[in-house]
């Protein structure tokens, strides 16, 4: 497959995702609207009772918003978009017609993750822009984040997006079912992981949880309750990136179309 064909295939995959109005609406609500609501509500609280509520923006508000985008709401967006990218061809029946073109199944799989990541990054970039705007506009004279922290935060949110979108693409390609993938990925990442991180008796087993590793690299103050080494965090993230992708690729190549 030439680079031009790969680029065109990723482009139409992006087109397919962004033309899905329901998907984009939910993705926008989960990241952009939630962040806007977070700052709006904090601003109202500060306006009504400045003595007990800090300004919505500034470094404090920025830190909360970055954590929410990377680990929760932006993550949900990435998983939602990744699931759609991983399952849509099979669920709609178009996979059969694409296989019948003679294009390799591996190539059909390989274009899904870049497209899901691109769309997910675009949505969360808007949410991050809202965060930045609110951080400075609603700082109320408090300290604001440095350019370095802003760049590190943007990079960290992008890293979370990449891993979670690719994870959802891999699981989606493995199952071929939107509902199963959404339940499995969101259930694991948002419910099971949160519970397991609080089970201290698991000890270092918890280091294998993706959220623990992402939390380790989080540039803003705060943690997720578990401390792991940076090297371990990188290995764990690589595993969460590679294993589901390998599973999805294997299933795409073996699936009866």
């Amino acid at each position: 497959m030439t680079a031009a064909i790969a680029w065109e295939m990723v482009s139409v995959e992006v087109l397919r995702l962004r033309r899905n109005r329901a998907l984009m609406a939910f993705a926008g609500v989960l990241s952009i609207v939630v962040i806007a609501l977070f700052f709006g509500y904090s601003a109202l609280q500060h306006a009504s009772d400045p003595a007990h509520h800090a300004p919505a923006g500034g470094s404090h508000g920025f830190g909360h918003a970055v954590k929410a985008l990377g680990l929760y709401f932006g993550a949900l967006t990435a998983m939602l978009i990744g699931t759609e990218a991983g399952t849509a061809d099979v669920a709609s029946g178009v996979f059969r017609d694409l296989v019948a073109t003679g294009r390799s199944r591996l190539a059909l799989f390989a274009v899904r993750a870049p497209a899901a990541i691109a769309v997910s990054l675009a949505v969360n970039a808007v949410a991050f822009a809202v965060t930045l705007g609110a951080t400075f506009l609603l700082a109320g004279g408090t300290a604001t984040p440095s350019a370095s922290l802003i760049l590190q935060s943007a990079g960290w949110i992008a890293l979370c997006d990449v891993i979670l979108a690719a994870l959802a693409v891999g699981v989606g390609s493995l199952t071929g079912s939107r509902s199963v993938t959404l339940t499995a990925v969101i259930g694991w990442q948002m419910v099971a992981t949160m519970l397991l991180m609080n089970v201290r008796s698991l000890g270092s087993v918890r280091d294998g949880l993706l959220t623990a590793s992402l939390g380790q690299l989080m540039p803003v103050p705060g943690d997720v309750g578990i401390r792991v080494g940076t090297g371990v965090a990188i290995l764990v993230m690589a595993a969460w990136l590679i294993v589901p992708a390998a599973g999805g690729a294997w299933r795409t190549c073996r699936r009866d179309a």
Partner: protein
Amino acid sequence: MTTTNIIETRGLGKRFGERPAVIDLNLTVPRACAFGFLGHNGAGKTTLIRMLLGLTSPDAGEMRIAGRPVPQDRAVVLQRVGAIVEEPHFHAHLTGRENLRVAAAARGPAARGRIEPALRRVGLSDRGDDRVGTYSQGMRQRLGVARCLLADPELLILDEPMNGLDPGGILELRTMIAGLTDEGRTVFLSSHLLDEVEKTCNAAAVIDRGRIIAQGPISELLRDQRAELDIDCADGRTALDLLDSHPSVAAAQRTPDGVRVTPVGADGAAAINARLVGAGIAVSRLQPVHDSLERRFLELTSSVGDAS
């Protein structure tokens, strides 16, 4: 195996668990013709198509498309093959034009330039910017054919393409298939609409319970059918009594308008007519029974059923 045939299979077999779907299947489809592939539901038609396209693997035998072995040379072969399997599927939220762009992206840069001509050819240029979710089933079928045309296909494999088409749509598709074969392309048409296959195709194969039981030009498939005559007359009962023991009649039966007979010999019809008229029975119509593919198909498939 030669390249004068666009599809050739030898000893092809496929099982789903314990159930054989295709058994020792030998099929030859000549180039530049419309080839009908007939069979009851579950006879193995779609299984063969899916194996040809590499959607599922055969358990035995070999296949060639345009002289090349598949699945070994599948990627090269399928560049010039367009196919609709069972029914065309699309992303409902994309427009017709965007759906074609999705397929064209997988086929390569040349295919993108064929999107507009393909839409024009199937009569969907005006609706190309509407979402496929708003298309009728007939329009989806036409869009499916347009997607096939993106390959500039040597071979089009159409699985039940008449499904969902109104009579006008069927006529359009028939005309389009004729046009495609005139251009030197081969159309492999799987259908249960036997009358349509008879009108559309030059040659056909009949598959029953996974085995090919007849194949060849339509005219040859019909040739060995026994000739029959429908005779419309005023007194069918008397006519039947007269003809039942007549030496020029092999078999006779009543029909609502008279009798149907199987004459013996080339001049049997003349002798039968003379016998009826001589007995004072007015014959208003004497017509050979049309050799229909449907009838031949039912004879073939039911005889296989009897044998087993």
